[in-house]
């Protein structure tokens, strides 16, 4: 928040700013899902992640960083929507892990203390799917905004930046999940495993690609 006030914009200029935004949007997405599905049971698993990312984001002092050129609402939309997509994917990742644990417990007849408190498999499944849907839509919208912005700035929509390529892969992977999770051979645990696997792309994109591969998507 302090960072955002300092630079009078959505805080997307450095890794910590984008992490902070990420944690806010993560919480917002979760609250949204909670409102749709009327289930609060997953909160205890999502909240620690929100807090961890939030703390990580606030470790260094807020400082003004050299801003990327041609800032405007379009660029802010691009960043916000993409980070919203990542937070939706992060939640689907957490939900899928809970699904797999709970599924295994039910199959092994070992429910234990938490087993009776966890949400039903069906609920987890539906929450995961709506979360992925939110992610796909905002990622597609965010990428479109980014391309239009790039076109205005440099006159081309596509410059072959690795980050953009990886993001397209992520989008395709999650669209794939959305379809497969409704088919007979992938329904249930396999779909959740796929969802967890897909999130590895997101982590890869957020870490390795940002740090070493991308030309100008340095921090988000």
């Amino acid at each position, binding site marked *: 928040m302090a960072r955002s006030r300092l630079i009078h914009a959505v805080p997307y200029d450095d890794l910590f700013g984008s992490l902070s935004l990420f944690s806010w949007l993560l919480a917002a997405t979760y609250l949204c899902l909670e409102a749709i599905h009327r289930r609060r049971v997953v909160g205890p698993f999502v909240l620690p992640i929100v807090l961890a990312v939030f703390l990580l984001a606030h470790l260094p002092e807020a400082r003004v960083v050299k801003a990327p050129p041609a800032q405007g609402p379009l660029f802010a939309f691009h960043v916000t929507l993409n980070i919203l997509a990542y937070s939706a994917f992060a939640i689907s990742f957490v939900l899928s892990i809970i699904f797999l644990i709970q599924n295994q417990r039910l199959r092994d*007849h070992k429910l234990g*203390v938490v087993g009776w408190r966890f949400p039903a498999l069906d609920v987890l499944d539906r929450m995961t799917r709506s979360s992925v849907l939110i992610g796909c839509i905002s990622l597609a919208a965010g990428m479109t905004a980014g391309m239009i912005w790039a076109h205005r700035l440099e006159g081309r929509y596509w410059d072959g930046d690795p980050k953009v390529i990886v993001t397209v892969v992520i989008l395709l992977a999650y669209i794939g999940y959305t379809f497969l999770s409704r088919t007979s051979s992938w329904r249930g645990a396999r779909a959740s495993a796929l969802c967890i696997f897909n999130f590895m792309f997101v982590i890869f994109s957020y870490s390795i690609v940002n740090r070493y591969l991308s030309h100008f998507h340095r921090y988000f």
Partner: protein
Amino acid sequence: MEIVLIGLNHKTASVDLRERVAFTPEQAREAAEQLRSRGLLEESLVLSTCNRSELYGVPSESATNSAGAVELFVASFHQISLNDLDHSLYRHRDSHAVRHLFRVSAGLDSMLLGEAEILGQVRDAYQIALDRGETGPVLNRMFQSALEVGKRVRNETELGTRPVSVAFASVKLAERIFGKLNSHRALIVGAGATSEQVVKHLCDRGIKQLRVINRTPEHAVNLAARFNGEVVPWENLPAALEWPDLIVTSVSSTEPVLTRAMINKAMSARGNRALLMVDLGVPRNVAPEVADIYNTYLYNIDDLTEIVEQNKKARVAEIPRAEAIIDEQVDKFLHWQAGVAAGAVLGDLRSKLAAEREAFMKDRFAAMPNLSEADRAQVAAMMQEFTERMLITPAEKMRGIPELRRKLQNFEAIRDLFHLDREKP
């Protein structure tokens, strides 16, 4: 402001005796009426379920040995000799009676630890007594607190959450997989006694679509009719497996009735949607290999029994937490009760002082004939103001400090000190 409780329950009395001492709602009303007309109890409430009969009361001020009199009354009301009753009755007073009621409504005193039904029974008994005007401020407060205790224990502890019967455990497992059961389908294979219990719980939890299949069609028709289900002929069993999300089996058969091949076929026909099978049969009705099929969940009677045993242990482990809630609520109640008692003592003290003051002034004014009417009025006002002022600090202390209350042993000392008892002035 005493509270008395006499009662018996499944721990202290045989079924036979419990039946004889049970109160129907009509009898409860009659008993309450008689207790009041005889001047034994000011407030009364009868809590009578199949496992307990309890009578809570607040004795009238004039009654002596009210608990004994109430015991006699109960014996004569049910035409049982007091000797038969004596060993089975428990008698509690004041804070012990309050604690007992709180434990009852929390489910700690139930045969099945933590069961939920008792809370509803307490609520009903209270509602009936309240409507008939049999309760008063003390029992109202006490039963409202008891309902609060019941709710808190169920919300804040695991005492009542995990199922402790095989039938209910099956239904709860289904809810762990499918969520709400309203839109799901159940197939009952074999119409035995346990499957009937499962069906009953399933219907309670909202299942609407139910099919019954049985070797003897009459039994299936019977069960289906009672729970609004359909009957499927036994020959159609393999095809019938594609329809449900939950299958409950209890067939007496030496060979498994549902084989791996049958379930495999059913699963591909239903697009691999999750399938829960609850096998209550001994020997087992579902082939054990079925458990390996993707997206199926298979529980046999041993698995369920083990879950039930674990849950029973888990409930026992929750007792201390429930007791802590009860301690807290008993303290709260006693605090309230003491506050009311303090108010009553202060009221008595105030009127006593007022009477003494009037008498004193009358006496002194008689010796002072030269005082004018206005002077007399002024002196009277001053004296009144003075006595009121004297009472301000003690009133604050009595209301506010529990420690002081304990020191004064519920204000009995003050009553003695100022001769506040109306009977012995």
